[in-house]
């Protein structure tokens, strides 16, 4: 009886927390929107804010695959490329309205993710990593050889997005993935990460959850790619190579594998570093690589570990007793 009560209370409190987060997200949107409209954030700085939103989507979706499900993928930018090119073909060649193109891009990228995920997710650890890297490279080679989308020269698309589009896409991504990892399915993914054999013993369909996480991750990567294409209105195959996948990985690792708030924090911090080092791209990469090495040696769990920043930690909301964070 008490157990049920506790459960009921926990559920109510977590629903309450969810809406507080959403409200906080809306307030942040209003503040940023006002600052952009009034010109306090100038057009250059607003590009940085756009990039932050895109990086949040990419990092949180990669974190679902790498951090929560423990399947090490380093081909995430390839999916962003699929999304970018699909949406670009839809708007520039098929003349579809942008929202429809966005939808097609997401669904198609998820489909490609499913297609790649089913055979490769039988592999483990570093073999899986190298295979996803291989698929990322293959996607790039295919894009270079497709003359229909401009080959190596790339293609131009229309600018369709604004701050509202990007911000809400990021907000929705975070909300969906945060709720996913706290659902039954998300718990199953975490169980797969912790111990595959044990998870299987508990009746979890390991392959199903791996592929599910991979497909959802690909879907949101496709979303980010499609939005980026219509924000910066020029796409080329080399924007979706190994280095871009690596950048997303650095964000996730810095923030903490298995922490969504960590990924958001990582995305904001690294986008700022990138912007500051704009004129010295090779120093940027040196710093990124050093960050990565030093984090792995001295704080392999990243800034946040697998912990989340919780309302209770700043005295809001009810402290959750007993249950550890995922």
């Amino acid at each position: 009886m008490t157990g049920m009560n506790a459960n009921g209370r926990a559920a109510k409190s977590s629903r309450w927390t969810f809406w507080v987060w959403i409200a906080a997200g809306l307030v942040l949107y209003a503040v940023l929107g006002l600052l952009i409209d009034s010109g306090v954030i100038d057009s250059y700085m607003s590009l940085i804010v756009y990039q932050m939103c895109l990086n949040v989507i990419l990092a949180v979706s990669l974190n679902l695959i790498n951090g929560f499900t423990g399947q090490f993928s380093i081909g995430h930018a390839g999916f962003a490329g699929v999304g970018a090119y699909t949406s670009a073909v839809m708007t520039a060649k098929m003349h579809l309205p942008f929202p429809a193109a966005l939808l097609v891009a997401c669904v198609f990228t998820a489909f490609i993710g499913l297609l790649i995920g089913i055979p490769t997710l039988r592999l483990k650890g570093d073999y899986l990593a190298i295979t996803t890297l291989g698929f990322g490279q293959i996607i790039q080679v295919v894009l270079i050889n497709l003359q229909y989308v401009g080959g190596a020269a790339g293609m131009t698309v229309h600018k369709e997005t604004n701050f509202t589009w990007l911000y809400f896409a990021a907000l929705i991504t975070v909300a969906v993935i945060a709720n996913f990892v706290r659902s039954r399915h998300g718990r199953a993914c975490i169980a797969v990460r912790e111990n595959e054999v044990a998870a299987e013993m508990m009746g979890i369909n390991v392959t199903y959850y791996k592929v599910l996480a991979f497909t959802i991750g690909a879907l949101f990567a496709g979303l980010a790619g499609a939005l980026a294409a219509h924000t910066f209105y020029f796409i080329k195959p080399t924007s979706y190579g190994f280095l871009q996948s690596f950048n997303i990985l650095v964000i996730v690792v810095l923030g903490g594998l298995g922490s969504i708030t960590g990924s958001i924090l990582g995305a904001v911090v690294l986008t700022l570093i990138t912007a500051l080092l704009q004129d010295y791209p090779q120093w940027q990469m040196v710093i990124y690589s050093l960050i990565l090495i030093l984090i792995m040696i001295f704080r392999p769990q990243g800034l946040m570990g697998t912990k989340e920043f919780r309302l209770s930690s700043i005295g809001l909301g009810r402290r959750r007793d007993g249950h550890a964070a995922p």
Partner: protein
Amino acid sequence: MTTFIQQLINGLSVGSIYALIALGYTMVYGIIKLINFAHGDVFMAGAFVAYFSYTGLHLGFFGSLVVSMAACAVLGVVIERFAYRPLRKSTRIAALITAIGVSLFLENAGIITVGAQARGYPNMLPDTAFNLGGVTVSTKQIGIIALTVVMMVILQYIVHRTKIGKAMRAVAYDPEAAQLMGIDVDRTISFTFAIGSALAAAAGVVYGAYYSAIDPLMGIMPGLKAFIAAVLGGIGIIPGAMVGGLVLGLIETLVQSLGFSLWRDAVAFALLILILLIKPEGLFGKHAREKV
């Protein structure tokens, strides 16, 4: 028929370079189960050291080769000591992320120190072409293949006939048991990195001589290809790396001569994925059962 033999020889030359790099990959993987992503960049460093000792210090081909192999052996040991050793007890993914970090660090440090643009490589090896019944063979190609064979023989000797080689095999088989038998595991691992990196340096010199141009990012693709070669032959198995490198070189040359040169890299990666899915233990590997 002559075209076929011609392509065969070209393929063997390219394959030799892959084989030399793949040896280092496979040795390191065999001993600490780490995909040393930075290996391709050690290869790049080797090419540059030889470039500067040839043009700056006028050491000649063999002098430059020896200097570059020695320098890269040191580089390999330093990388292992400072980046990989602190992580030996942590997860393999943590080590892999570090390896990617080291790789990017070397590439971009290279760009900062020597500049991003490609440089012409000096003609270190004599380049006369023979015509044997319609097939053109250059002295360069013969030199590359001969050098690879010599390195391979030396490596086989070290691994199978010397004390340190025995220690390497023991650590690869079971590090804890090896330690209990009085083998200095850290020293053995350092030695493995030294040999692997020296071989990568040799490959770098040969690559520069063969393609006549080097740049700080030159290691990425050959590094990944060599990894594919190592997996193809069965990772951790030294003769496997050699055969895998040669086979990959032949396949690539074949794809290129059929007119699909733009798809060459995709074919190599597709090959990797196919092997991993169908026969992950490689051509020479034995199937290992997973223990729980």
